[in-house]
Each structure stands twice: as structure tokens, then as C-alpha cells.
């Protein structure tokens, strides 16, 4: 990141008071400057084609001509109209905002950039101003009175407006923090989702979303790992685990009649430090197989828990998500277990059953080891692995050696989607408490439902928009730095694959002495496998606490 903006330079730019001089009159009259470092590259034509989405062509956001179809305004109008009828959220949120400003300083991108158009209310107003012009009766009536257009706050759809939309709706990570504070529950994520659907009608996706989506559709996962390579990756982990523990934890693939199908984001299979979390899963499943005969299978076909289709359109989300149920049905498992991931769990929790259910070919999930019925998942039939592990620990079914993680001074980052689109808050904390000795919370306004985004969610985890990402990461980093300095926190736990990648970059940039861990990596370290050797290293091949001294004593 040598050519990237330095932390100090970034901090110097922050100013929460919109400058009146540089923004004369109304914000509606200023046009957008698409700035390198703040935007993601355009979708490759090939990726758009794979999904048969419209207007696949090479284009560049920095150029004047975006190579849109001639009737692009008509497409936007019809697209909005259709969505206003299909989504009550969208229609209500277009009408009822009073611009009270409660959301203004809740957005991590506003806090990190000071750009007034990153205030959630203003992000939504970018779209509302056109809605008021084209759809609201008030806008139409008022525009006939002198001064009425200003009174309505309306503006027509132009190329400048479209570029502004594109720039700012790809500066929203759909984290929903603003929605927690809104007195009407207006959810900017929902508005961003609609705007991105509109972009996709015109072929205006970004590549960091379009290519993973295309890969996932064709190959089964975002990274485009082909079946044999996927197996190779897991085999490689199995070898590493055997080095550390002396136990072979080889998983099942596509095993028909297994008890449970396990699906996790492919990031866990491919990118550090998610790979260690993945090893944690393998260790847990080996333990459960050995001790209790639980039969878990993986699938290379449904090898992606994440769903970047969610950042493209509802339809694309459905197309990618369909694999989970299809594979569970084909394999004849009882129910599905899902790995640690953020937006994946919002899709599973709030969308999957509605889109691709009913899952009447699966059983209501019961933990065969503890007998616990997962009643909160009785229809969707998919259980979060942290719910599953917490249940096992509570019933004393896991033998854990906490001391193996005693060098980890932990804090926990609640990921946006599990926190605000699900509410899985205490389960991960319970697991952490049982596998670690030292745990400190970050300040109350930065955790649980008020948690801050990593700054790279909703498909913005690219390399070219690093300034945007690091600015958006600031509020999280700032809270982390606070506990790092106060309590000596050296480990940031999380249950999201994007987080494991994004927070590592965040730490490197803002709080260099902190490492990122998935919760099941800690479980993997602590879990005492039947027949394991005397462990001296953790999953990262670092010496276990206490071992270093012993060796030097000898």
C-alpha cells in the first residue's frame, strides 16, 4: 500500500461540518467527481454475460460516455416503478423521511470521510429527489406553483445524477447502522439495494461484485475454485492440522445420506486468516465424528456460503442461493449447518426460505448430540455454527483447553448483518468465553446492534478503492485501538469471512499490533481431539502459550 494515502493524511481530511463555501446553495446543484481510491472498477463484460444480465460491454466510470442504451432514462423510470410496487419498504422509505438528521453521523463512511453525501439521509435523498420529480403526486402538483419545485425538493434524472448515484451507492456497505437510529426504521441498505438493482438493468455493476457472482454461478463459489482445487485446499488443511495435532481430520465431500451438509464462505477456504477458521471447522467435525458419530459433509457444488448476488439484485441472490437447498435435497441430509459469515447469514435468515423454500425435504433441525431442537430455525432448517457450538459447549459435549488460547487478549467485532439482520450477539460471546481467558468489549456505542462496519462489506472489498475502505474502517479501528491501548487487546474475533479479510487490512493500516481470528479457529485450538499428540503449536504454527518458555528452560 505504498502509493496509498497515509493514515495521517486520511485523518486530516475529516471534517464533519459541511463546508458552505465549496457547496453553494443546494447540494442538488453540485455534480459528482468520481475520484480514484474511492470507487471500484467496472464489471467485466464477460462476467455480466455469464448471468445473461443486460448491457454487457467494457466501460470505464472515469470516462464521460458510459455506453448506456439510448433509452436509459426510460429503463430507470420503469425499474423504479416496478420496485415501488414490489417493495413496500422502498415506497414507504421514499415518502416518510423528515430529514431529522438522526442518522447523519451514524454512517462509518461519513465518520471516516466527512463527505456530507455519505450521510445516510443524503444518500437516500439522491434517489428521493428523482422519485419526487417522477412519481410523487406532491411533486407533480407542487411543480405547477411558482417555487414549488424547490418546495418539493425534486430534480429530474440526468447523467450527472446517475453518476452521483453510482458513486455513492457504491459507498454504502448496506450495514443498516443508520436504520437502528431512524425513528421510522428507514433502512438505507434497502435503498442501496434498489439503486444497485437499477444499475444492473443498465450494466453498471462493479467488477468486485460481478465476477464473484459469475464465478459462484458457474463454479460454485466466488473465487472460482474448481471442484478438484477445492478438495486440494481442504486436503492441504488436513495435512497442516495433522502436523499440529497428529490427528487426521479429512472431511467428506458430497456424501449422500450424511447427517448434515456444511456450507461456509469460500473465503474461509482460500484467504488467510479465514483458512485457520476453516481448519477449526474440520477439527470440530472430526471431534464430533469420533466422539458421537456425527456425519458432516461438504459440497464442492454448494461451496459458497456468501452471496454477492445480494449486492446485485434480489433475482441474482435467489439464483445463487438456490444451490444450498438443491444440494441438501440431492444429498439427502437432515439439515444444513452454516459457517461464520456476515451477509451470508442475512440472506439465509431473512431471505432463503422465502425465495427458495419451503425446505420440506429436510428435517426440523435437532442437535443429535445434545437433543436440542433449534426452534428458531425450524422452517429454514439451517443452523448457524456458532449456535451449534454454543449448544454443544453448554451441554458439556466439548473438551476444551482454554489455556491454549491464553495468549490471546480478545475483543469481539459484531458483524453488521448478523447483528442487525439477525441478532446473533450473545452466542459468539459465550463461545469465546469458553475457549479464551481474556475478553474485553469495545465501547458500548460500537458493538452489538450499534456495531461499526469493517468498511468493506457489500462487495466493496476491492483493492482499487482502498482509501474509501480505510476511511470507512476508521470508526471500527478507533474503537479497537482504544481497547488495544487500554487492555492490551491483541486479537479481534469475528464471525464473518469478509471481516476476516477486511479487518486484517484494517488492522495493518490503523492498529498494526492486532490480529484477526475467526471464532472457530479459537475453538480448533482449544478442542482436545481424541488421540491427539502433545500439541506445541497453534493452527498458525505459532508456539502455544507456555511452550516457548518450557523449550528455553530445557
Amino acid at each position, binding site marked *: 500500500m505504498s502509493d496509498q494515502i497515509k493514515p495521517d493524511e486520511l*485523518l486530516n481530511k475529516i471534517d*464533519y*461540518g*459541511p463546508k458552505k463555501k465549496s457547496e453553494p446553495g443546494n*447540494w442538488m446543484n453540485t455534480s459528482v467527481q468520481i475520484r480514484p481510491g474511492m470507487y471500484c472498477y467496472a464489471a467485466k463484460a464477460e462476467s455480466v454475460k455469464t448471468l445473461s444480465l443486460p448491457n454487457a460491454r467494457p466501460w470505464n466510470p472515469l470516462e464521460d460516455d458510459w455506453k448506456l442504451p439510448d433509452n436509459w432514462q426510460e429503463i430507470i423510470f420503469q425499474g423504479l416503478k416496478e420496485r*415501488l*410496487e*414490489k417493495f*413496500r*419498504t*422502498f415506497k*414507504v422509505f421514499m*415518502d*416518510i423521511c*423528515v*430529514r*431529522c*438528521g438522526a442518522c*447523519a453521523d451514524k454512517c462509518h463512511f461519513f*465518520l471516516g470521510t466527512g463527505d*456530507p453525501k455519505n*450521510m445516510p439521509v*443524503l444518500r437516500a435523498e439522491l434517489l428521493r429527489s428523482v422519485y419526487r420529480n417522477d412519481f410523487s*403526486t*406532491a411533486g407533480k402538483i*407542487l411543480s405547477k406553483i411558482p*417555487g414549488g419545485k*424547490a*418546495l418539493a425538493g425534486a430534480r429530474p434524472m440526468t447523467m450527472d445524477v446517475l453518476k452521483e448515484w453510482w458513486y455513492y451507492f457504491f459507498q454504502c456497505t448496506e450495514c443498516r447502522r443508520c436504520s*437502528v437510529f431512524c*425513528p*421510522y*426504521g*428507514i433502512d438505507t441498505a434497502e435503498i442501496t439495494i434498489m439503486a444497485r438493482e437499477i444499475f444492473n438493468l443498465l450494466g453498471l455493476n462493479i467488477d468486485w461484485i460481478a465476477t464473484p457472482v459469475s464465478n459462484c454461478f458457474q463454479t*460454485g463459489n466466488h473465487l472460482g475454485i474448481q*471442484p*478438484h482445487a477445492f*478438495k486440494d485446499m481442504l486436503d492441504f488443511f488436513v495435512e497442516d492440522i495433522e502436523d499440529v495435532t497428529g490427528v487426521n481430520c479429512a472431511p467428506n*465431500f458430497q*456424501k449422500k445420506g450424511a447427517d448434515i451438509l456444511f456450507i461456509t464462505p469460500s473465503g474461509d477456504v482460500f484467504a488467510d486468516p479465514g483458512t485457520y477458521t476453516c481448519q477449526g471447522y474440520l477439527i470440530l467435525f472430526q471431534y464430533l465424528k469420533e466422539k458421537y458419530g456425527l456425519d458432516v459433509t461438504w459440497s464442492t457444488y454448494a461451496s459458497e456460503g456468501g452471496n454477492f448476488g445480494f449486492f446485485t439484485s434480489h433475482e441474482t441472490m435467489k439464483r445463487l442461493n*438456490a*444451490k444450498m437447498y*438443491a*444440494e441438501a435435497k440431492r444429498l439427502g441430509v437432515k439439515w444444513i449447518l452454516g459457517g461464520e459469515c456476515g451477509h451470508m447469514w442475512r440472506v439465509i435468515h*431473512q431471505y432463503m426460505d*422465502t425465495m427458495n423454500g419451503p425446505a420440506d425435504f429436510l428435517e426440523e433441525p435437532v442437535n443429535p448430540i445434545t437433543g*436440542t431442537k433449534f426452534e*428458531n430455525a*425450524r*422452517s429454514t432448517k439451517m443452523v448457524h455454527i456458532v*449456535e451449534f457450538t*454454543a449448544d454443544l459447549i*453448554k451441554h458439556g459435549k466439548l473438551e476444551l483447553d482454554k489455556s491454549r488460547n491464553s495468549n490471546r487478549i480478545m475483543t469481539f467485532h459484531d458483524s453488521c448483518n448478523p447483528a442487525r439482520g439477525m*441478532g*446473533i*450477539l*450473545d*452466542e459468539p460471546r459465550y463461545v469465546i468465553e469458553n475457549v479464551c481467558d481474556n475478553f474485553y468489549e469495545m465501547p458500548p456505542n460500537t458493538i452489538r446492534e450499534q456495531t461499526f462496519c469493517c468498511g468493506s462489506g457489500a462487495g466493496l472489498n476491492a483493492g482499487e478503492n482502498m482509501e474509501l475502505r480505510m476511511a470507512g474502517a476508521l*470508526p471500527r479501528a*478507533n474503537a479497537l485501538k482504544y481497547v488495544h491501548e487500554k487492555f492490551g487487546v491483541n486479537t479481534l474475533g469475528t464471525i464473518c469471512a469478509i471481516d476476516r479479510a477486511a479487518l486484517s487490512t484494517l488492522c495493518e493500516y490503523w492498529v498494526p499490533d492486532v490480529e484477526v481470528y475467526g471464532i472457530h479457529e479459537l475453538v480448533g485450538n482449544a478442542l482436545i481431539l481424541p488421540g491427539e499428540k502433545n500439541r506445541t503449536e497453534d493452527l498458525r504454527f505459532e508456539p502455544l502459550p507456555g511452550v516457548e518458555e518450557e523449550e528455553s528452560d530445557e
Partner: protein
Amino acid sequence: MNQKYLIPLTAVFLLFLVAYTGVEGAGLQWFFGIVFPYVAVIAFLAGFVYKVLGWASSAVPFRIPTTCGQQKSLPWIKQSTIDNPDTSTGVFVRMILEIFLFRSLFRNTKAAFNKNASNRLSYSWEIFLWVGALAFHYSFLVVLLRHFRFFTSPVPSCLKILERIDGIVQLGLPGLMLSGVVLLLAVLFLLARRIFDAKVAYISQAADYFPLFLIIGIASTGLSMRYFTKVDIIGIKTLTMGLVTFSPTIPEGVGGLFYAHIFMVSTLFAYFPLSKLMHMGGIFLSPTRNMANNTRAKRHVNPWNYDVKTHTYEEYEDHFREKMIEAGLPVDKKE
């Protein structure tokens, strides 16, 4: 002066002048006292119903509440039953708290960035917007309810009790009603926030200032009639009872100030369904608040769900069969 508030301020002045001079100069009492109030009330009712039906006609394809607390999961984990409800009772309580106590706004914080020394971001509880909003809405409600004495004969006892509570400070003659004063102060606070808070000023539109100026106009003409200029209450009650019994009459001796007041009130009613003031109806329909977070337990049905093109396992296996066999992965068709 910024045109964002200059236009609405001028508009409200004009409204006042039109009614005042229309009555004092042109004798148009029948228009400002009878025709326009009727038109405004019809526009309000029709517009409100039209708007709400419009929202209701849009589908709710997914159950997507914003969860603000612990979910219901394992029996020994304490659920936050109000902020993350999984039952309709929980949703009901959540909605009551939102509608009557503005619970989400109560959470409001203010972020501050301490540059240089510590580079620390800090968040403090910011209660003033909540207090201001609550004061504004409740005083407005009380003022509105008190006005029902002009439309009922005899005045119901509950209104008299309300008046007695509202006038509890027993100051001056006629007795001071707290609600009117609180309303004016609260609306001035909300206005000051819009003008002096740089962030709120930036997001504000003329459509935000207009209702504020209009309500300031309504409150100040009302307060002025009650405490300073005095009006012929008997005459006004004759007019209002005439309106409500559909036998409208114009009494003698009621001045232009009253007609300016009723004209601005009528304008507010007519403007209501065309504006952001519809948040009053919309809050009930907000899907992030009025739905239970139980989508995994209870299937939600999307009325327009349709089939989509997926990439099936068969297509996948056809594509990768050789590589799969070579890697020792099970396949359905071995060819």
C-alpha cells in the same frame, strides 16, 4: 439568507396576508371560513387514505426487520423480546414504544472527532432532538385536542380535564395553557437546529422549513388571539359549530387574524398528505419495525416470487466430471 428557507418563509407570510387582507379588505369570510376549510379537510382525508392505501398496495416480499438486540435462539440465551421480537406481542410493544415514545430516536448519539492529540472518535448520548421532538408532537396533540371544544357542544368532560391539566400553572388571565407555549418553543428549537446545525442545514429542503414556518404562524396567531389581541369567542364557536354541523354561517365581529389562523391551519391539512408529514401514517407501515424476526422459524411468503434460471448440479457435474473423478470426488454419472 438562503433560498431554502426564504421561499417557504415568504410563502407563509403570503398565506397570512392573503387571508388577512382577503377578509379585512375584500370581505371573503365565506371563502376562508367555510369553503377552504371544507376543501382542506376533504383533501387531507382523501390524500391520507390514498397515500396509505398506496403503501399498503405494495407487496412485502421479505421479512426484514432491523434487529436491535439478541435474537431468540437457544433457550438459555436471554432474548431481547422488544428490540428483536419474534412474536406479534413483541412487535406490538416495539411499535407502541416507537410511535408513542420515539424509542429509536432516544438512542441518538453525537459523534465527535478529536483531531491531533488522540485522534479519538467518541460518541455521546444526544437527547435534545428526542426531547424536542417529543415536546413538539405531544404539545401539538394537546393543542389539537383542546380545539375540539370549538366543535362540540356541550364540551365533553374529558376535554375539560385536559384543559385543567394543561392550565395547571394557573398563571395570568386568561389562564396560561402550557401546550401552546411548549409547541411554539419546540418548533422554534427544531427550526434553530435546521438553521444552525451545519449537517442538518445541509440536508434540509424548503419542504422542511415550510411546515415549520407554517406551524410557527399557526401557533403565534393562536397565542396572539388568546392572550393579546382577543377575539369574539362566541362568534368563532358559532362558525366552527356551523362547519361541523354542515350548516355553515359567518358570524359578525370576527376579525382577519382569526381567518388567517384558520387559513394556515387549513393549508397545513391540505399540504399534509403531499408531504413528509405523512410519516405519521408511514411509521405504522415500516417493515423494518413492524415485523417479527422469526423468518427462520416461520416461512414468509413472497406474493410475487418467481422461478429463476439456476446452475443445476447436473450442469455443474457435466462441466467438471473428469476433474471430479480424477480428484476422487463422488459423481452421479460415471462416463
